[in-house]
């Protein structure tokens, strides 16, 4: 029974993820066929697919995807690398939290696009500048999830560990760390979404390659098909990476008290 359920679950996971896109696609076709919108302003799915195919086989689509994935992953990893220890510190020490909380909420609200001029001034227009923007976005998204999660951790586990003779170091490694793994994974997922959402902004900084750059170049030539292609690629990559992370999370935190489904 349980086994059958899981199998069905795995299939329907994919099925359920696909279903809304089938609807979206039909809506797209209907909208175009209905004549409500000037056909030159809305390319058909088929023509976008043709653009996809030529870009894939003759163009630079793969190189663009590789470049963007590389930037997103690098920015995200760097952001997480800083967000996890900072989240620990802020979540654990109340005075630190009181001090840092307003700052984090101030910086978190700034749109990355607004920072581009400053980034160019201080970091130039190279790869570092682009990754810095992605780092900024993912750090602030992740750190807030981390420390909000930390404050929800019940102190009873720490007390139990102390009565069993645990040292401070053991409490950190054997109690605090495992308890924060679910929050780290949530932070990673949230930051991943934010990083992809910030990609186009980061590639406004004189990017030659990347999906964001591809969209911007296309817009100069009013090439709607390529713009749609870029948007779809970003969405699909973000979705795919999120599904992957979700699967990893499920395995890593199988102990969590969640209703299966």
């Amino acid at each position: 029974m349980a086994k059958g359920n899981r199998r069905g679950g795995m299939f329907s996971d994919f099925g359920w993820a696909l279903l809304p896109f089938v609807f979206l696609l039909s809506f797209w076709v209907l909208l175009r066929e209905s004549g409500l919108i000037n056909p030159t302003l809305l390319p058909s799915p088929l023509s976008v697919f043709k653009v996809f195919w030529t870009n894939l086989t003759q163009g630079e689509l793969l190189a663009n995807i590789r470049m963007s994935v590389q930037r997103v992953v690098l920015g995200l990893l760097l952001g997480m690398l800083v967000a996890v220890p900072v989240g620990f510190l802020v979540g654990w020490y109340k005075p630190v939290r009181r001090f840092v909380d307003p700052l984090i909420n101030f910086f978190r609200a700034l749109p990355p696009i607004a920072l581009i001029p400053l980034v160019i001034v201080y970091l130039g227009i190279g790869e570092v500048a682009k990754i810095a923007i992605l780092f900024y976005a993912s750090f602030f998204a992740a750190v807030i999830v981390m420390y909000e999660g930390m404050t929800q951790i019940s102190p009873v586990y720490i007390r139990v560990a102390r009565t069993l003779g645990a040292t401070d170091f053991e409490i950190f490694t054997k109690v605090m760390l495992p308890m924060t793994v679910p929050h780290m994974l949530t932070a990673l997922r949230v930051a991943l979404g934010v990083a992809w959402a910030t990609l186009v902004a980061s590639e406004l900084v004189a990017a030659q390659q990347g999906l964001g750059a591809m969209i911007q170049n296309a817009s100069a030539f009013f090439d709607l098909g390529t713009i749609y292609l870029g948007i779809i690629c970003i969405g699909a990559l973000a979705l795919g990476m999120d599904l992957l992370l979700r699967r990893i999370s499920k395995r890593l935190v199988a102990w969590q008290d969640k209703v299966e489904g």
Partner: protein
Amino acid sequence: MDAARERIRFQNVSMQFPTAGGPLDVVSDMSFTVGQGEFVALVGPSGCGKTTLMNMAAGFVKPTSGRVTLDGKEITGPGPDRGVMFQEYGVFPWLTVEQNIAFGLELKASKVSPGERGAIVERYLKLMGLNDFRKAYPKKLSGGMRQRLALARAYAVHPEFVLMDEPFGALDAQTRSAMHDLLLEILHAEGKTVMLITHSVEEAVYLASKVLVISARPSRIREVIDIPFPYPRQRALQETPEFNALRARIHGSVMLEYAAQEAQARSRAQG
């Protein structure tokens, strides 16, 4: 039993908590001892500071004045010599049942050699009836099983003392009754010194060798009653007239304190 060697001593212990309306006296000049091999139960109205007393013995808080000592030395912090059972069992959700039991054995403070660990874990898995769930995470366990797991984990490190704060409060009547007998069985086999906080008079009389009735806040000792029934005790004890007479007497004493507590709450609400 009367000449039990004194182990834990509360000596003129008082506790105040600062509140918005000035300091609140929670415990007031309390003195009592827990002797080697004794099972001391503290009963009294809820909110009377019983948990504070246990936290002092465990080493989580220090009294505002007075001393809490263990073998004459002041208690300064928690340690593996005093196993604690919390109201919320505190079973680690990220560890399996057997990993939970082994937790204390794998710490640096553990005196158990790695070779003995497995045997100890096996023993408590069997004793607590958790063998079939050894690889399961706590989310799969019932309340009674989590309770048994917490008990197993506390016992595995071989504490000399077991401190229990309303450990059976959240269990249904049948499970609680089964836990009582399991506890008596283990105590009979392993002989521990126990301090139990409870609001169930029946539980206190059935399990303990000495019952302290705690007054309404601030906590004082209202009465000390020796429970004369020899161990091992059986469920049938609860049907005897002696048991019921003792229970009724202590119950009367506790009810007076409940009434006092109520009166306090009323006057606070009006003031």
